[in-house]
């Protein structure tokens, strides 16, 4: 696998002196979804705008699709699709006309652009609104149309800046599925997000960025393992004596792959490698030794904890809209396990 994006010591200082991107280095491999996770103002948008040739960089080096950002911006523009954080659609044109225009700007014939537009409108549930002025679209529809614009010319490399901000949960899920399909078809995707859940689900690899610097890069699972893996908590019945708790502690400590167990009240907590897989085996062992279980639970570390570990603070997610804030609550509330 070759790298489709290579960024070395990228720096962007705005005229007012703001050091938005501060010595950032990373690579994106062909065919992967690479996520830039960070709070507002971390430098995500600036990085993406530099890479899509919209902003000149201050220093550093960047190759996008093998083309140098300084020397061959035109070559880069030929192979990328970009959907920005701020929607860029023409509200006086219909949804279809917007898409056809994008296709034409990327050198497609009118017939090809129309065919492709209809296909995408259908795929994203915009067929009914295809011939309505985009000005009459709801916020979610505008966001979808903007995203679809980036897909008209089937670019091999896609840049998406916070693509799901302001989307309702259904649309967000549909978009996630579509991005996964695109990846399956070989498209490389660079996306920024401030949602842990999104980064976790989509990102093959992530870079956590804060205050213009990358604090850590890695696969989501790897990053989460770095903050301590899964923790299984076994609660024994309330009338359990200390001796039984000690026996339970020894039993789980002997379990392969388990860390050092700790006890509290009448419970034993133990870090394990993969709770989902070890659980049944763990239960069987305790059962064999005649240790009664009143309650069993496990927790998985989240990217939130990864962020906390590397930056020393919780991620700040700015709540700008209703859809966003409700998504935020779901995210924090659900420590769910994908499988």
């Amino acid at each position: 696998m070759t790298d489709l994006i290579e960024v070395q010591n990228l720096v962007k200082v705005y005229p007012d002196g703001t050091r938005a991107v501060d010595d950032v280095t990373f690579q994106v491999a062909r065919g992967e979804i690479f996520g830039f996770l960070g709070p507002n103002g971390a430098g995500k948008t600036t990085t993406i705008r530099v890479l899509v040739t919209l902003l000149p960089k201050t220093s550093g080096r960047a190759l996008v699709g093998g083309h140098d950002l300084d020397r061959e911006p035109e070559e880069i523009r030929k192979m990328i699709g970009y959907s920005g954080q701020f929607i860029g659609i023409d509200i006086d044109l219909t949804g279809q006309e917007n898409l056809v225009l994008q296709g034409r700007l990327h050198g497609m014939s009118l017939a090809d652009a129309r065919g492709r537009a209809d296909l995408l409108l259908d795929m994203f549930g915009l067929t009914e609104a295809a011939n309505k002025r985009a000005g009459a679209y709801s916020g979610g529809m505008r966001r979808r149309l903007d995203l679809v614009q980036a897909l008209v010319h089937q670019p091999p490399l896609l840049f998406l800046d916070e693509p799901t901000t302001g989307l309702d949960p259904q649309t967000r899920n549909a978009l996630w599925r579509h991005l996964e399909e695109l990846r399956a078809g070989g498209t490389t995707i660079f996306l920024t997000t401030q949602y842990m859940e999104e980064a976790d689900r989509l990102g093959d690899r992530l870079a956590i960025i804060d205050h213009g610097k990358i604090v850590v890069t890695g696969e989501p699972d790897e990053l989460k393992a770095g903050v301590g893996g899964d923790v299984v908590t076994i609660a024994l019945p309330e009338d359990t004596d200390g001796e039984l708790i000690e026996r339970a502690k020894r039993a789980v400590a002997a379990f392969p792959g388990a860390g050092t167990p700790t006890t509290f009240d009448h419970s034993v907590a133990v870090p394990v490698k993969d709770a989902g897989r070890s659980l049944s085996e763990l239960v069987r062992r305790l059962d064999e030794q005649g240790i009664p279980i009143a309650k069993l639970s496990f927790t998985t570390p989240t990217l939130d904890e990864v962020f906390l570990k590397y930056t020393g603070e919780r991620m700040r997610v700015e709540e700008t809209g209703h859809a966003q804030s409700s998504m935020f609550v779901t995210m924090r509330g659900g420590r769910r396990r994908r499988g």
Partner: protein
Amino acid sequence: MARTIETTRPAEAPEFRPGSVPTGNPLARLVNESTAIFGRNFKKLVRIPMMLFFSLFQPMLWLLLFTQIFKKLGQFPQFQAQGYSSYLMFFAPSVLTMTTLTSAFQSGMGMVTDLEQGMLDKFWISPIHRSSVLIGKVMSDASRMVLQGTLVLVVAIIMGARIKTGVVGVLVMLVLAACFGIVWAGLSNIVALRTKNSEMTMMIGILLTFPLLFLSTAMMPAGLLPGWLSTVGKFNPVTYVIDTARQFMNFGYAWMELGKAIGIIALVGLFTLTGATRAFKKATS
């Protein structure tokens, strides 16, 4: 625990599809891109009926009101001595030019809107010539100006104006006005791209345009202007554009004047259009 999405990934991502990477010779591409952008701008123009109505309404108002206010002036012997049979015959070419000049400032405001709505981002990341965006814009501005100009002339003719050089004169007048309008739209776009603010663009536009109109022969023949104003008017491109149109309308073919006016427009355009191109490229940063 395996992630389901990983199972859908191919062992090796396929090579690039060429997709729809633009090919062909640069000139053909430039024409294609400009046409696409022109089409987009033109659709916007006709799609907002209110905008079209008001941009046509304003010149009508000027034509009707000014010719009424100054109607008696046209009968004064001193005015008649200048060779104009009525104030309408004198003033219609002025309205034509005034119309294109004010229309020119809509151009910059449209540019700010495109900037605010993120359309320029979309244009900038497309593999198109930067100039295509401006060419497409200029073409749609020009068609708006020709549309407005045609209406001005039609109403003037209904009001009793006659064009001595006929169809040729009409064409000369329209093309000349549109060319000057485009050159002036360049200035509007410079302001728009520098300020990135539509109110500022409008205000600076009015500030630049109206003194220029009043410091020319737009309202009064040169022979009836105070000496200093007549002198200032000689350095004003508006004077040459309006006077040439007037020649074709009132007196006959005036190719020398036309050549001079075109030369002056080209000279002004050299500054405003290259300035606009530069401002457009610079706005990327």
